[in-house]
């Protein structure tokens, strides 16, 4: 479970998240909102990439402030731009990066790399230079790298925004199949129709928190 207790976040003087208290227990939670509404800041609080200016963020009871390392093992993160999260020049090396960081034994790493490659149709491309993959393949590789680490939760910050329709669908399907708890920031409202819960942010405050139907309607009316 993810819990925020009285969380306020600022950059300098500017308040970007204001007094949020939340418990996220559902398997599929989405966060939507206009540009600059604080969605990315919210996402980054969940794995300790950012610490709240005030309040606490707890992941399965672990405080991101004091248990940063354990939190990052429990919470995987997939970013918007697939290009900037692949850090090794070759597909399978990149997959192994997070696993090496977990200090897993070599056989275990090999086994997990194999199964991640197979799961995301990347086996043929294992020795392929990462920069030659398509946008969709890059995002799947990023997802595979996070999945292989077997976190309990995965946070996505607009994972499909930069993809074309076909790749969007492919990545969306991969996300739908994840056994993990998912928190997803997205502008692709279609992807959120079968989520359990949708939170609407506006200027750092929660203005709606509901099932997808009513929450998305609310958001569309507000943005119109």
């Amino acid at each position, binding site marked *: 479970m993810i819990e925020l207790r009285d969380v306020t976040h600022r950059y300098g003087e500017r308040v970007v998240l204001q007094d949020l208290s939340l418990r996220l227990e559902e398997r599929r939670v989405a966060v939507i909102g206009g540009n600059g509404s604080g969605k990315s800041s919210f996402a980054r609080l969940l794995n300790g990439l950012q610490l709240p200016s005030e309040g606490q963020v707890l992941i399965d009871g672990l405080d991101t402030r004091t248990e940063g390392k354990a939190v990052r093992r429990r919470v995987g*993160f997939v970013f918007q731009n697939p290009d900037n999260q692949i850090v090794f020049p*070759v597909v399978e090396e990149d997959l192994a990066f997070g696993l090496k960081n977990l200090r897993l034994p070599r056989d275990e790493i090999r086994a997990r790399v194999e199964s991640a490659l197979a799961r995301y149709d990347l086996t043929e491309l294992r020795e392929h230079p990462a920069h030659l993959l398509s946008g969709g393949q890059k995002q799947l590789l990023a997802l595979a790298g996070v999945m292989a680490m077997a976190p309990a939760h995965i946070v996505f910050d607009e994972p499909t925004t930069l993809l074309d329709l076909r790749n969007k669908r492919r990545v969306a399907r991969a996300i739908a199949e994840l056994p993990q708890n998912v928190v997803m920031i997205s502008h692709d409202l279609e992807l959120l129709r079968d989520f359990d819960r949708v939170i609407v942010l506006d200027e750092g405050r929660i203005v709606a928190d509901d099932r997808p139907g009513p929450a998305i309607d609310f958001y569309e009316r507000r943005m119109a």
Partner: protein
Amino acid sequence: MILSDYIPGTGLLWRLPPGSKLLALAALGTLLLAVPRLDLAALTFAAVIALYLGSGLGWRVIWRILRPMLVILAVIAGAQWWLFDALSAAMVALRLAALLLFASLVTLTTRASDMIAAFERALFWLRPLGVNPAKVSLALSLALRFIPVLGAITAEVREAQRARGLERSVIATAVPVIVRLLKMADDIADAIEARGYDPAPQSPRPTGDTRP
């Protein structure tokens, strides 16, 4: 030397430890420079060609490597001929071509990551001086990963500028490229952190196969 030129393969040359290939390259370079003889240069050149053909890397690969160097080889050989004689021109050209081909052979048969791991092991001995091999090797990997991206960004920026009728100008191109690189560097740092990177020095990895 272009580190990212690897051609997947399973032959003997691919299985040799990268450190031994680098050592062989250094030894060959030293030998050829220390013993300037035409017969030795010709013999080495023939041997390197034989290595290529023996490992299934055909004439096309050899040509791809030599072609961009032909002008430089011709200029150097021409200067030698003019200064000395035809024999020394041939010696110098053959020697350089042999070294070039051998260096390329090393990169063609060694995965960048294995090369980096070899550097990492070598750097392990510098740890008392404050060098963290894990950090150095990550930096090398990142460089290899993002050099092509840098090229793509530069091309994009140029294109956008041309579309708006801007003439080619180094500064006008460099500024937006640098801004995007800084943003990208931030994102990459986040991604590395999010994937649990921990630069605490580790014991050196065992030699040999470092694939995942």
